[in-house]
């Protein structure tokens, strides 16, 4: 009995039931792996759109792998893997350059009651509060993957001096919009949810809008920078977003 379904140039295919193959590139968080996952994902989507990849329903890119969901009554997994290897063979150059990476600049109110862990992060890292904020706003993040909650993007890499393990005691209620850090990652909570990350502040821009298409603001591969805003700006932005339909591209840099 084997979990391995086959191998490709940089991956091994693992069964995740009878309708999913997980093409695993590695077992750690590494932007080089994310690039490979993203490239193969694009290849599969082009082929699917062109109608040359029968039976494939959808994919899930993650830090380490690309999950390919298919109907085994339409295509046997062996044949699907052969198709994918052929796709890779015909496109040896990474597609990363041709992908349009969107760059978002998102406003964040750091500290106050919206960032209850800013002070403890400063003391745990031995940095001043301003130094913590400076490190966070001067970093260009990348959305590695979405998951955990609808619209929740795992952003990396948080600057090394800010790397901390998860909080010992997770909070039962982390408010929507909370910008939080743990290990090398930063996340923005689209919904109120339990959570164990250190909350630095709050971003008033909704991460998920069920009426929009696509409903999630971010997608894997996007670049994200943060801009520090003060409390009055935060409050007026909140009000504006609640009262009117704001074009989300307003926060795009490119």
């Amino acid at each position: 009995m084997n979990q391995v379904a086959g191998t490709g140039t940089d991956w091994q295919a693992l069964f995740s039931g009878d309708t999913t193959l997980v093409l695993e590139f590695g077992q750690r968080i590494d932007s080089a792996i994310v690039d490979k996952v993203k490239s193969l994902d694009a290849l599969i989507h082009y082929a699917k759109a062109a109608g040359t990849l029968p039976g494939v329903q959808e994919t899930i890119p993650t830090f380490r792998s690309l999950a390919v969901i298919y109907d085994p009554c339409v295509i046997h997994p062996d044949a699907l893997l052969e198709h994918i290897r052929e796709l890779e063979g015909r496109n040896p150059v990474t597609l990363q350059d041709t992908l349009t990476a969107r760059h978002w600049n998102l406003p964040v109110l750091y500290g106050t009651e919206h960032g209850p862990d800013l002070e403890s992060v400063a003391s745990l890292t031995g940095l001043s509060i301003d130094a913590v904020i400076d490190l966070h706003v001067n970093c260009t993040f990348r959305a590695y993957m979405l998951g955990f909650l609808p619209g929740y993007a795992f952003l990396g890499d948080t600057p090394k001096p800010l790397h901390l393990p998860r909080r010992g005691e997770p909070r039962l209620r982390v408010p929507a919009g909370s910008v939080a850090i743990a290990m090398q990652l930063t996340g923005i909570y689209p919904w109120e949810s339990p959570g164990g990350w250190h909350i630095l502040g709050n971003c008033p821009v909704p991460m998920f809008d069920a009426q929009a298409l696509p409903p999630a603001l971010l997608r894997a591969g996007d670049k994200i920078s943060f801009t520090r805003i003060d409390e009055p700006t935060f409050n007026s932005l909140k009000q504006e977003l609640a009262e009117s339909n704001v074009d989300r591209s307003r926060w795009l840099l490119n």
Partner: protein
Amino acid sequence: MDINAPHLKVVNAGLLSTIQDSGRFGFRHLGIPWAGTLCPAWRIIGNSLVGNDSGCAVIECFEGGLQLQAGDTAVRVAVIGSPSAHIKLGNQIDQVSCKANRSLTIAPGASLYLSSTGSLRHAIIAIANIDIPEHLGSTSTYAKASLGGLDGSALQAGDNLRLGERSQNSIDSEPHTYCELSEELLYQSNVLRAIPGPQFDHFSSKGVDTFMSSSYELSTEADRMGVRLSGPVVAHRDASAKDIVSDAIVPGSVQVPGTGLPIVLLNDAHTAGGYPKIATVISTDLPILGARRAGAHLRFKLVDIDEAIAARVHQRNLIDRAVASIAPCIVSEISLSTLFENNLIDGVTNGHDELNVS
């Protein structure tokens, strides 16, 4: 909503009743799970019984307590699930017991009462001409992201389900139909067939032996997201094997967190997670986890991909055969709505007798 338009009113929503269809596909990469009925076969058969397309929205009701009342037009429905489900048609005074797995007519102003889903944990209710708006390509309710259903949430007392324009009279004049559900489509098996999971090698050989040879009890922590099992602890390879960098999750993924007790994830589960997955329950056997109640003793049986595909083909054939076998009820001329309209039920039943119409 125009109260004169054909509709069905939710008088009681029961424990958990949601609108579901085949699911919301294509958004897992944004963290949006499929949702959809836990027992697809029941949705397909139910919709066929009431003359709908198989992909139409249905109500998935856990345990019972559901009361649906027709407006000014009769409504054809079918409850699919356990043959021992407690189903009645009528009003507060006069009620007549009815069977699952056949079509029924709720007369104008009368109600369908699903007081209990019987020997299985849930049932589905198919409704002729149900008209629910799609949200991201599906009517399936996923309350966490306010998607699907009537307003993104589970059904509540007072909700009105809109019905389409097709003349209810023409449906009513068609004979009632029934479907004999085979044992396999009632999902009472104690065996969950599973394929070794992506992190199979994160478990010691003793852990794998425990997982394969033990009986696990379905705990009360069971919902549309997943089910927790209780039983012998499955040993990880070592302490470092208890957490992984987040990886994709699908319905059927069997996660084993640090506690060593397996969790089988279902339709509403997160799309990614950081616990190692020892196995994946095959798509054919997933409905068992929605149909069986807490306390059920289940075993895992590892199979290879070709056995899993054969099981999937077999189940599709079973569903096709069930749909093909749908036949008019023998006493189809006894229309329940006619009986109600003419007030002929009075005195005929004490409300506990089974009206033998199939």
